[in-house]
């Protein structure tokens, strides 16, 4: 079996407090999976927020996601279809920065639609897992991360890693 070191940082962005969108562009196709690790809150009034993630500047209704949550008193599940982005769970403006991950598998292949997994948390409110879909066979070369309301809070960080399979 071949073995090689991987899980490589591609880029990191830290929000200044005045940015509604963070963009990772010119993403190399040399990895197998992408992993976004974030510590963030957006401008949404309240404890919970969302990072709206789109690929390759596609603003069409080509995204969907299935949501599983536990909020301390119940577990539930929701789904949104034909959306203009996939939502990754993060903190709103009354919470502290909250960490999460967003995984994009086989992002550079041109034969399958792109599937994603998100794990997010807001300590005061809920723990969340989401499976997402972008209905495109295009290789992903750009990710736009947009605050669901207002700007990302100052100090929010977003690091994109590449994982290369043998």
């Amino acid at each position, binding site marked *: 079996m071949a073995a090689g070191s991987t*899980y490589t940082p591609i880029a990191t962005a830290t929000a200044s407090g005045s940015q509604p969108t963070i963009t990772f562009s010119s993403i190399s196709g040399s990895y197998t999976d992408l992993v976004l690790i974030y510590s963030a809150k957006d401008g949404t009034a309240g404890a919970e927020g969302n990072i709206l993630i789109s690929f390759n500047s596609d603003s069409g209704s080509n995204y969907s996601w299935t949501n599983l949550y536990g909020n301390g008193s119940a577990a539930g599940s929701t789904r949104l279809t034909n959306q203009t982005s996939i939502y990754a769970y993060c903190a709103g403006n009354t919470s502290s920065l909250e960490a999460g991950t967003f995984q994009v598998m086989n992002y550079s292949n041109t034969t399958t639609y792109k599937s994603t997994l998100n794990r997010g948390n807001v300590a005061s409110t809920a723990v969340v897992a989401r499976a997402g879909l972008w209905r495109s066979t295009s290789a992903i070369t750009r990710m736009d991360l947009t605050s669901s309301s207002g700007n990302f809070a100052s100090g929010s960080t977003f690091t994109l890693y590449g994982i*290369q399979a043998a």
Partner: protein
Amino acid sequence: MWWARLLNVISGLLGNGVAASTTSYESIATVTVGSPQSAITFSSIPSTYKHLQIRGIARSTRAASGSYVKIQANSDTGNNYANHGLYGTGSAAGAYAVTTTDHAGEAYITASSDLASTFGISVWDILDYTNTSKYKTVRALTGADVNGTNGQVRFASGVWLSTSAITTVTLTDGNGANFDQYSTFALYGIKG
């Protein structure tokens, strides 16, 4: 970069996957399905890591909506496993538990009746796989969205009731179908 490694550690603590540093996560092997096949096996797994991670996309040839991947160790097909899951269907959350069964976990994948070109994805962690003094546990974050009424997101965990070091991992379709073309699984090792 210390902050990048800190974020990795935070990710691991949150259950998103075993924390990895940029120097301790290594690719071991990858299998991509060319024509439908019933099983994917990683054998002769080196014992030089602390944990294993399997990342994959898969679609089943099952003539239905949805299927699942089951995981077995060291070619043990006996009822020496148990597993649990928590899942969301898009309209409700549910849970399951299976004991005295032949596999350690169930990752959700798409199948032939689902939207074309969609694949279920999963990230499995196999913890302390070479330890010969305890049973082996696995966990997974898995799911698939198909822009419709089917699809699922799931937390899965399981145990193999054996103290043997794991040297082989086998993935099969839990409904006895095949993995469809373009299904891909990659095995990684994480140093301790």
